[in-house]
């Protein structure tokens, strides 16, 4: 293609595994990008999107290399030019904005020193002009009070501000191509919206081309005109944004879009069965990489890799395009109406306040108090109810859960279970009976399962602790638990390291279920999972509630997930409840300004 800024031909990235077999991280990727064009690369964790992005800069993660194919940026291959040329290319022609910009900034240097360093390397400006240029760049990225910002240290900036500084640095060399790797992941939704609209503006005003990598197709569709869907190292579908979002063709694209929870939807998110295989397990797969999860897979799919075929402005790699377009393999379930909840209240939290620090002696002398993290929070959960707890990071969501679980002492207030059991005290002071009734599931299943215990041992422990079972019954009970979370019994002997992310989270849920709890406290339990897997976990939770009538307190920063799952919701800001009510009311007709702002930032 003439006039293309970046073109990639048949690029494969990977390493040589045992038996000299190539292991592909990225496989046979073709794409071209014209000046000023914006391309979004979407895919689940481990699909190779970051590796592809880094390769565009001529950079490969340790142990990886280009196996075949070519890259041309402005006619030059970043893999073949001299290291000086590459240096110039990386700073001037293209610039990378990594995910954790805050961590990429040097903590011991003022922002100004770091900006100047970038200007020294990547611009032709005379030193006298650097300060003015810094201010101009900061205004460009809409940092408030640029003069003062320059004097600060990185930790004195918020996450969104750090990200803006990183963008300003990337713009210093007036690049023609910006490469972004999940630049808003980890930011709060309201902050994310700001950064996204800034990026949009930059591309429009400066005519900068952009490759934006994210696991979140909704984020991508805010910024990019072209979208490429990656699965297991390959781009399976690529085309203009509107085409892909409105009429996805590839079974994976359709599945991905159907698995995303959305506000105002009558159907449940539809999970994709299974999980993506990691590169070493894909082996020398000759067929379609998606065949293992695809509802339309045929023998041909498993034996012959599909080639890219054009459909109007896009192209798709799939053998069964006709069947896929009929789209009948996705039939999302209708949302169930909330069950008729009894009036009996299971958990009552009254006037709860929590703080982490005790007053220092100086403070107590002056009669001062360190600030409370959670302030006068009251709410109730009925039997069988799923209550959502939403708010931005640091608003005290996890603190409330920890206090209910007895892992964090409260400053004041009362927590009672079933009207009689007092949950104000710490774990050590609670009777077994109370401990059993309240169980906790954590965000990151990698950290919440002991890597040295098998699944069987993990599930057996709460059974031993809370129930008096014979050994035979114990084994049956473990099998039944695995079955309830849809895992095969053979998983008993596996260690967490041998399970995928979604499977680990199922084990963590099964461990909570083992106690036959009345209330399960869930702290962001789906946010470390891919959307297609999250949908399956949400469905599992709904099924469990329907079967056993367990109540859930479900913490999340994702409003659409809460709307999908929960009966009622509590909106938290800075440790205080801003709004509470049934999901239907709060989401349709938010009363508090903060709730309205949160809802407005949902993409």
């Amino acid at each position: 293609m003439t006039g293309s800024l970046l073109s990639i031909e048949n690029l494969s990235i990977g390493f040589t595994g045992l038996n000299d077999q190539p292991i592909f991280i990225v496989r046979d990727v073709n794409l071209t990008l014209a000046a000023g064009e914006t391309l979004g690369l979407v895919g689940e964790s481990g699909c190779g999107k970051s590796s592809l992005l880094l390769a565009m800069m001529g950079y490969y993660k340790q142990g990886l290399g280009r196996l075949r194919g070519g890259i041309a940026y402005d006619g030059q291959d970043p893999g073949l030019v001299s290291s000086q040329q590459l240096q110039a290319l990386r700073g001037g022609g293209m610039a990378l904005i990594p995910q954790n910009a805050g961590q990429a900034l040097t903590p011991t240097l003022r922002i100004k020193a770091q900006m100047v360093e970038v200007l020294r390397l990547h611009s032709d400006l005379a030193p006298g002009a650097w300060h003015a240029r810094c201010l101009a760049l900061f205004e460009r990225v809409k940092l408030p009070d640029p003069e003062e910002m320059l004097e600060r240290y990185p930790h004195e900036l918020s996450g969104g501000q750090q990200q803006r500084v990183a963008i300003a640095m990337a713009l210093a060399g007036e690049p023609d191509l910006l490469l972004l790797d999940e630049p808003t992941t980890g930011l709060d939704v309201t902050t994310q919206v700001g950064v996204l609209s800034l990026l949009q503006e930059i591309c429009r005003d400066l005519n900068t081309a952009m490759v934006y990598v994210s696991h979140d197709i909704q984020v991508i569709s805010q910024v990019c005109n072209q979208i490429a869907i990656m699965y297991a190292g390959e781009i399976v579908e690529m085309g203009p944004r509107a085409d892909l979002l409105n009429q996805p063709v590839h079974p994976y694209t359709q599945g991905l879009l159907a698995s995303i929870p959305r506000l105002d939807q009558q159907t449940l998110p539809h999970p994709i069965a299974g999980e993506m295989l990691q590169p070493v397990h894909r082996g020398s797969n000759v067929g379609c990489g998606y065949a293992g999860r695809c509802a339309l897979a045929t023998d041909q799919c498993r034996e012959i890799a599909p080639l890219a075929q054009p459909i109007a402005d896009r192209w798709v790699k799939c053998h069964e395009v006709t069947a896929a377009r009929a789209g009948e393999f996705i039939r999302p379930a209708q949302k169930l109406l909330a069950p008729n909840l009894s009036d009996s209240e299971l958990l009552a939290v009254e006037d709860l306040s929590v703080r982490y620090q005790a007053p220092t002696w100086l403070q107590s002398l002056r009669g001062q108090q360190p600030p409370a993290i959670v302030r006068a929070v009251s709410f109730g959960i009925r039997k069988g109810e799923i209550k959502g707890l939403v708010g931005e990071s640091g608003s005290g969501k996890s603190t409330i859960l920890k206090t209910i679980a007895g892992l964090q002492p409260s400053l004041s207030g009362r927590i009672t279970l079933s009207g009689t059991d007092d949950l104000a005290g710490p774990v050590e002071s609670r009777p077994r009976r109370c401990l059993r009734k309240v169980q906790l599931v954590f965000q990151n299943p990698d950290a919440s399962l002991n890597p040295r215990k098998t699944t069987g041992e993990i599930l057996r422990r709460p059974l031993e602790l809370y129930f008096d079972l014979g050994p035979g019954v114990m084994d049956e009970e473990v099998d039944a638990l695995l079955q309830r979370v849809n895992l095969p019994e053979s998983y008993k002997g596996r260690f967490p390291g041998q399970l995928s992310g979604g499977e680990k989270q199922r084990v963590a849920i099964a461990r909570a279920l083992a106690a036959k709890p009345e209330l399960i406290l869930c702290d962001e339990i789906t946010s470390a999972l891919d959307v297609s897997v999250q949908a399956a976990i949400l469905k599992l939770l709904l099924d469990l509630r329907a079967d056993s009538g367990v109540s859930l307190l479900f913490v999340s920063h994702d409003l659409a997930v809460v709307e999908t799952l929960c009966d009622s919701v509590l909106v938290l800001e800075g440790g205080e409840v801003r709004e509470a009510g049934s999901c239907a009311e709060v989401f349709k007709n938010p009363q508090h300004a903060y709730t309205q702002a949160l809802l407005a930032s949902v993409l």
Partner: protein
Amino acid sequence: MSSAPAMLKGVMATRSGKIGVVLVGFHLLLALMSPWLVPYDFAAQTALVDHAGPSLAHWAGLDTLGRDVLTRTMLGGREALLVTIFGTGLAVVWGSFFGVLAGYLGGRIDELIMRSVDIFLAIPWMIFLLLVIASFGNAPIVMILTLGFFYGIGVVRMARAATLEVVVKDYVLAAKARGESPLSIMMTEILPNVRDVLMVESAMRWSWMLLAFSALSFLGFGVTPPTPDWGLMIANSRIYLALAPWPVLMPMIALSSLIIGINLTADALAKSLGVDKTTRALV
């Protein structure tokens, strides 16, 4: 996950690990069997031919007192190995106990344990050791207890550092929330997850302790003559080095090959277990 055979396999996967295991294995076997293998009595003196070089009858020659150097070298590691193996075991057991305790409980107890550690680390322990030996003699049990005590102090620090990395994990929190006792949390949640670090650490400590023991013998405090010992052999024969190198070279080769073997094994173990040795606390 990694049982003893699996660990051995991991170590043997690298060439340096293989060499290390062979060296250590050779020394352990030799220590066990040497009393039945040696060609001469270790104390028997061949009159008038002291300092003889290697000959068909005496492969490594004779020492100052006309004793067979090969015999004495083969026997010379036995007490060192006995003392250091049990000493290391003791150091690791008590050191990890207090280290895990301090790391898990935190607060006052942590403060108390760590300040005591600081105090003991400030003591010039070689001198303290000589004092203990001077008062209680140098029987193996005394050596085991004193060396085990001193080398355990470093283990406390190291086990505490490893524990601090584990206690913040959600599975420890989950165990607390479940109502597990502190003892059960330490034994089943923490210990298995610091075990790898402890294994590598003990291997390193073993080689340091061997050096320390040999240094003591060299100074004449380790073993009582005429019991053969490498450090003592080097000390006794070193002034005649120019005249008769073998009585010095043989124990030196034996001691260094054992220490190199242990270090190679420890390195390979660290690599195969994924323990980053650079992050461990010093001393």
